[in-house]
């Protein structure tokens, strides 16, 4: 969206477009992707916008090629991105593992579709487990952020770029067709000029310096163990410095709901209904799914003994909540998989059942 005014403007924007525009605001000028529903607005928008601002758009022959082009552009020192959905992200897992192993920053936008297999294009949170557990081979994690509004699609994709660069690690923006296809008002300022990134490790040719090498093969005795522990240190730092969560109605809460992304919006409506009936329900919304807000869950459940996890899947985040819950608290689960969406009334019924 070429915005020539100097003041931030409020405008209606589709979630997927907000991600694409957010990436441009973050200084991303290289996009490599392959069509798949429900994320096609992203490559369509960028194929029109990138050439206008000196950027590069490549429609690759597959998601495998997309993620490897991203790896190449990242190694060359550029902020770069790809986007896809379930089957395409599955194909990218090898590349994401190599990005993590080679310690390269990159942003992967994941607009989920229901699975397994070809599944369908309806909204789901069934890919939580895949993205938060690494996804590809080896002992690694991706940074995972989950927006819950179109405004956050715009801002959190920028955070993804910053965190990816800060930690030299792939960052995934996980969302779904509800947010991707929904239009909401978004405040967008003028698109800034990309900032120069200080990446002395990047491959630029070794004129005037010793050669740079980017690799993930470590065959020397004990080398790989050292590398794995180095990654763990990075994840610990990430956990300490950049875990994000939102708390709503928590001041007087006697009952907590944990939900993320589009599902947390439905939960917000249900909490309003519950509060109208005198039920003191609060919401914890993890914004970073990796790192998971472990400490926050533990601290809150020390004094609030009941936790309901609501997800649009058969129960994936609930495991992360359970292992971090204080021993005095009980954890309940309500989920709708395969494109099923809970109504605020459905969730209210569950609140009453477990309250």
């Amino acid at each position, binding site marked *: 969206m070429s915005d020539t005014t100097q003041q931030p403007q409020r405008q209606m924007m589709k979630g997927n477009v907000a991600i694409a525009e957010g990436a441009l605001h973050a200084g991303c000028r*290289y996009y*490599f992707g392959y069509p798949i529903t429900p994320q096609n607005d992203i490559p369509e928008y960028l194929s029109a916008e990138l050439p206008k601002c000196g950027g*590069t758009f*490549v429609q*690759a*022959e*597959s998601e*495998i*090629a*997309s993620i*490897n*082009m*991203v*790896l*190449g*552009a*990242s*190694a*060359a*020192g*550029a902020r*770069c991105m790809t986007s896809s959905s379930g089957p395409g992200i599955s194909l990218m897992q*090898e*590349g994401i593992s*190599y990005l993590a192993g*080679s310690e390269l920053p990159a942003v992967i936008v994941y607009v989920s579709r229901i699975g397994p297999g070809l599944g369908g294009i309806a909204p789901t949170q069934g890919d939580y487990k895949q993205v938060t557990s690494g996804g590809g081979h080896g002992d690694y994690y991706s940074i995972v952020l989950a927006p819950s509004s179109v405004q956050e699609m715009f801002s959190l994709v920028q955070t993804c770029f910053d965190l990816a660069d800060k930690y030299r690690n792939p960052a995934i923006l996980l969302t779904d067709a509800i947010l991707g296809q929904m239009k909401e008002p978004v405040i967008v300022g003028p698109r800034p000029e990309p900032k120069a990134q200080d990446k002395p490790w990047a*491959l*630029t*040719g*070794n*004129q*005037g310096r010793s*050669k*740079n*090498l*980017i*690799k*993930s*093969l470590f065959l020397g005795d004990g080398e790989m163990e050292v590398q794995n522990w180095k990654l763990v240190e990075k994840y610990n730092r990430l956990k300490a410095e950049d875990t994000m969560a939102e708390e709503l109605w928590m001041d007087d809460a006697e009952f907590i709901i944990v939900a993320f992304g589009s599902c947390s919006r439905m939960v917000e409506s249900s909490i309003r209904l519950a509060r109208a009936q005198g039920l003191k329900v609060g919401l914890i919304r993890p914004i970073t799914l990796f790192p998971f807000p472990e400490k926050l869950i533990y601290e809150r459940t020390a004094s609030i003994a009941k936790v309901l996890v609501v997800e649009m899947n058969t129960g994936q985040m609930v495991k992360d909540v359970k292992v971090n819950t204080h021993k005095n608290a009980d954890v309940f689960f309500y989920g709708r998989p395969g494109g099923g969406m809970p109504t605020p009334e459905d969730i209210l019924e569950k609140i009453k059942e477990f309250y």
Partner: protein
Amino acid sequence: MAKPAEKMDAVFQRPETLIDTNFHFCPGCNHGNVHKLVAETLDEYGVAGKTIGVAGVGCCVFLYNYLNIDVLEAPHGRACAEATGVKRVHKDKIVFTYQGDGDLAAIGMAETVHAANRGENFTVIFVNNSLYGMTGGQMAPTTLLGQKTTTSPYGRSHEGDGYPIRMAEMLATLEGPSFVARVACDTPAHIVKARQAIRKAFKMQIDNMGFSFVEILSACPTNWRLDALTSQKKLQEEMVPYFPLGIFKERSTADYL
């Protein structure tokens, strides 16, 4: 006591870009020749300091141990996708991939064909030794009919295994590539031609002519279970008749159509 050597002019020396170390390659393998030819070419054009190499998986992965340039290690088969990413960012730099036949012609076929078809302006150095060398000599798409490997113990049969793929000829049918050649390093005369082809391929890139591709036939004495000399003979007598040497495409203008 030996006579003190008289002062002589250096007429030949190790290319500056070729690091002074021992290759890990087996005796009789041609990877060493190819590394040297690439290093010589980068030196001749004076571009080593602005070159980024992309190493495939297999015996070629240790490119960074031998060439004094920036190197990216690609996942198996994906080097042409990585090179696309690198070159799109650094249009003014020299980018090449260095890949074997398992890497390029099997798992990396799609990435190779599409990079060629897009006319990506980088160079591919493709070392074809008719099998997977580093993993222990398994059958590759380039394994000759009747050739015994560890996964074709009765010899490759077209029934079930298909026919050996001629990559250079296949890529030459596309509009994207600017230069496609096949050479060998089995004799001094052939090495001279291989050097010319590699120089031409990099020149095409320097002149922004688009995708250039040099296939180099190589012996793999260890996995062929032959000594160095006999394996060169086998290369001449069995590989060259199926994989003919020559230039399959050479474009004189950047826009072909």
